[in-house]
Structure formats: structure tokens, C-alpha cells
């Protein structure tokens, strides 16, 4: 079994997994902060249609995926500003897009496998070329995120004051959707369209249950995403079950653990009891 470690496909899988985990771990906290789980899902399913369409016309599915996730992100950005409006717009768009995806796949009859791979991930079948794609897309995503990090954070947690301070809140929300589209297109290769949230939500959600410190929460989110992805791939080498299953199970259990332990950590967070402010005479 240890001999598996010498195969190129294993190296490719671990490398792509690591890149995707770092990107997802860094983007995840913003998805959680901005309540965008549903947008992730919507963007991914439109991406699925893009990939299916690309297969049909003989283009690399990753390219079709990326083109469509970016398109979906722009559409979502244009369609809805408020959360409710946005979610309704996403729901309507993704249902239509998935319908198209089904059509494309039924027209493309050569490999039924492809559909399964898009939906549930193909990490062990990833090529050197795909790893390079991941590296480039990942780098672009991280650079874009770094460029807007501070004002994006400001407008995510505190939009009113950010706007008052001149932060272009709407522009940033559009920029973030595009960043998200890149992250989604990447992560689909590892866990597939249907299991995306396992990398884009669970690690960040677990991290914020453990620490209120923003820097540490982000670092922890990356570490959890890395641990679950690499751990899942390694487990799949020893037990021939889908790596997506292992990754999503690991990340779910980390989240559960954080939920159980989080409140205990949280109890020590408050140094002042409620009401102490009013009771203490001031200046």
C-alpha cells in the first residue's frame, strides 16, 4: 500500500488539494461573514453547466467551469443587492442552469462518468495540467483577495460605517463574487459541485466557533481545510472509497467538535459581566 506514495497521481492530488484548501480556507471566512452559502451553491451549479457545455463542444471542462462561475457571479452581483432578493435571484438562475446542464450531459453520451466526477470531485484523477490550472487560478485568487482584504473585511462586517468611510461597498461585493467564482471553480476539482460547502463553509464556521480573533480564525480555517483535504486524500489511498466522502466527513466532524467545544471556549471570552458598563460611573 505504501507504494502508492510513489505515483504521480498521488502527488498531483496532494498538490492540487493543498492549493485548493488554502484558497478555500481564506475565502471561507468571507462566505460565512457575508451569509453567502447559497451563492456558493448557485455559482457552483452554474459552473457545472459550464463544464458540461465545455465537454459537449470539446473544450476542457475546467475552462467551461471557470467561465460559467464568473458569469454566474457577475449575474448574481447585478441581479440582487439585498440578501433576500439575491437568494431568490440565485435560486431562479441556478435551477435554469442545472436544467441546461442535464441537457448538455444527455447530449454528451461518451462518458457518463464525467457527470459523476463534476458533481462529486475527481481529485485522484487529476492531471499535471489540472494542477497547473489550480496553481494559476489559486494565485490570481489570492492576489485579488490580498489587494482588497481590509476594505472587504470592513464592508463585510460593518457595511454602514464602511460606506460612511468611503469604502466602495457595492464594488467590493461584486469583486468578492468574482473571487468566489475562482475559488469555486478550483474547489470543484477536489470535492465536486455538490460537496463544495465542505471546504468553503465548514472550516471557516468551525474556526469562528473556536476563536473570536480574526487573524487566528482565518489561519485556523486554512489549517482545518488543509487537514481535511489532505487527510481525506490519504485515507482514500488506503481505503478505496471516494476521497470526497472522507474530506466531507472529516470537515463535518471538525465542525461538530468545534460546536461542542466552542461554547466552553466562549465562556472564557467575556471578561466583563453584562451590565457592568451601566453600573460603572463614567468620566
Amino acid at each position: 500500500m505504501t507504494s502508492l506514495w510513489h505515483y504521480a497521481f498521488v502527488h498531483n492530488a496532494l498538490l492540487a488539494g493543498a492549493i485548493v484548501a488554502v484558497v478555500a480556507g481564506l475565502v471561507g471566512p468571507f462566505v460565512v461573514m457575508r451569509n453567502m452559502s447559497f451563492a456558493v451553491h448557485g455559482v457552483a451549479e452554474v459552473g457545472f453547466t459550464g463544464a458540461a457545455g465545455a465537454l459537449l463542444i470539446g473544450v476542457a471542462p475546467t475552462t467551461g467551469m471557470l467561465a460559467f462561475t464568473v458569469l454566474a457571479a457577475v449575474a448574481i452581483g447585478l441581479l440582487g443587492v439585498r440578501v433576500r432578493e439575491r437568494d431568490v435571484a440565485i435560486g431562479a438562475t441556478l435551477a435554469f442552469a442545472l436544467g441546461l446542464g442535464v441537457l448538455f450531459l444527455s447530449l454528451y453520451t461518451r462518458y457518463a462518468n464525467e457527470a459523476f466526477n463534476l458533481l462529486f470531485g475527481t481529485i485522484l484523477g487529476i492531471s499535471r495540467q489540472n494542477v497547473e490550472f489550480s496553481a494559476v487560478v489559486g494565485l490570481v485568487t489570492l492576489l485579488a483577495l490580498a489587494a482588497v482584504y481590509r476594505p472587504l473585511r470592513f464592508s463585510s462586517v460593518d457595511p454602514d460605517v464602511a460606506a460612511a468611510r468611503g469604502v466602495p461597498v457595492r464594488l467590493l461585493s461584486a469583486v468578492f463574487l468574482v473571487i468566489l467564482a475562482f475559488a469555486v471553480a478550483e474547489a470543484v476539482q477536489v470535492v465536486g459541485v455538490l460537496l463544495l460547502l465542505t471546504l468553503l463553509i465548514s472550516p471557516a464556521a468551525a474556526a469562528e466557533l473556536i476563536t473570536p480573533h480574526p487573524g487566528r480564525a482565518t489561519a485556523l480555517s486554512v489549517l482545518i481545510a488543509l487537514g481535511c483535504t489532505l487527510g481525506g486524500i490519504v485515507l482514500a489511498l488506503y481505503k478505496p472509497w471516494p476521497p470526497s466522502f472522507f474530506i466531507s466527513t472529516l470537515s463535518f466532524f471538525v465542525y461538530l467538535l468545534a460546536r461542542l467545544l466552542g461554547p466552553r471556549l466562549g465562556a472564557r471570552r467575556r471578561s466583563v459581566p453584562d451590565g457592568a458598563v451601566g453600573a460603572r460611573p463614567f468620566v
Partner: protein
Amino acid sequence: MGTDGVVARPVAQLVRAGLQLGRRRVWEELELQIRAGEFLAVIGPNGAGKTSLLRVLLGLSRLTSGTVEVLGRPPRRGDAAIGYVPQQRAFEPDLPLRGRDLVGLGVDGHRWGLALWGAERARRVDAALEAVGAQAYAEAPVGRLSGGEQQRLRIAQAIGGEPRLLLCDEPLSSLDVQHQATIVRLVADLNRRRDMPVVFVTHDINPLLGHVDRVLCIARGRCLVGPPQEVLTSEALSQLYQAPVEVLHVRGQIVVLGADMGGHHAAAAGGEAG
């Protein structure tokens, strides 16, 4: 302008200012000088354009007529010399944001790029926390603090940017009376000690009485400005509202009958809030 060296230059000035949002005329012919070091309260019914006035000063909305000047120049978006204190709002309890992080956003949250650890940044955050007496819960997650504690941090956040003018948009709404008094004392203290001009939008003037220099009342597209004892009278308000308004003094509190004074805001529901 009419500044002649004897009178200090006004902090902000609106001349024959009119604002129209879409097809709605918010106010017209607004004449207002915000004087150096003054504490100005802004009252009036919901939708009278109190927040819109702040948005004009912040450079987020443009006048449809007249002129406005803030700190000697036309308002511009993102002016670091203006501090802004918003209405209290709920944060998710698990949001990874501590008291000091909220204040830090006011120091450099608007700048591009990554947040870097710097001694200067930390010093400014600490100084702002100390100025409002919020050190005790600086490390606690914002979502688990009380409304009063959050609003104290909001003031620290605003002064973290080292402003020369402070705009407060209903910072007292949804606070209990005790916390309202604390926040008002805090703002009044900043106003006096630092000579910081304050524009304070509120739907209840009572917590501010004894602290404010002047009151601006906006209603029905028109406005009235002057010391509280001149504006808060039955005659003056009846004329402004063009309806019989009765101002009563009850146990040191002012009660206005017959005029909508706003309040009961649905927090964050307003499309133009901010």
C-alpha cells in the same frame, strides 16, 4: 462666506441647499452653519432627511441645489477627517471580530491591501479604547457585547480615525435610558475636551438636553435651527410643522404633542441608511 477673522470659520456650511432623492424632494433652502466646537442635535420626523443631511456631509449624496462645504472644502467620499457613529445593530454572536478589531476598522479598515501589524496602529486603537473606557471588553467578541458596550466601541471606532468632525446617526436608538445617558456623556465629553464639533441625529431630544448648543429641526422639507429653548417651543414648532404643536415640560423632560418626532426605526431596514 462672511468669515472675517473674529468669528471662527464654520466647520460646515450649507447655503440654500436642496436635496432630491429620485422624485422626492427631501428638503429645500436649507441654511446651516455648523460652528467650531458646537454640539448640534438634529431632530425631525422619520423620512424628513436627517440621515440624508449626514450623507451630504459625508459626500455620499449630492445636493440638487445650493452649496455645501465641510472643513473648508466640498464634501468628498471617504474624508478621514469625519468620524461616523451609526445606529446600534446586531452582530452575529460568533463573528470573529473583537472589540479592538471593530475599533481597528475605524483606524485603517478603509485602506486597500492586507492589514499589517503595526505599533502605530495598535497605539491608536488602544488610545481610542481608553478614551471611551472600553479596555475591559476590548478582547471580547463584538456579537456578545451589550448594546451600550457596542455603542461605546462605535465611538472609539469613530475617533480612531482621528476626525475633526463627528457625525452620529441615531446612536441611542435601541439603548435603555441608562446607556443612552452614558453614550451622550461620552460624546459631550469629547465635544468639550477635544473641541470636536458634533452633529447628533436623534429622535428623542431629552437625553441630549443640557449638552447640546443648538437644535436643528427638519420637518416638511423645511428647517429651523437655534438654541433648544428657542426651537423647542410650541410657537416655533407649530410654525415649522404648519400644524398646532404643543411642547410640554414634564419633570425636566420635554414632551412634544401633535408632531411626529420619528423613532421606532426598523434598524437596517432603510435602503439609504448609512
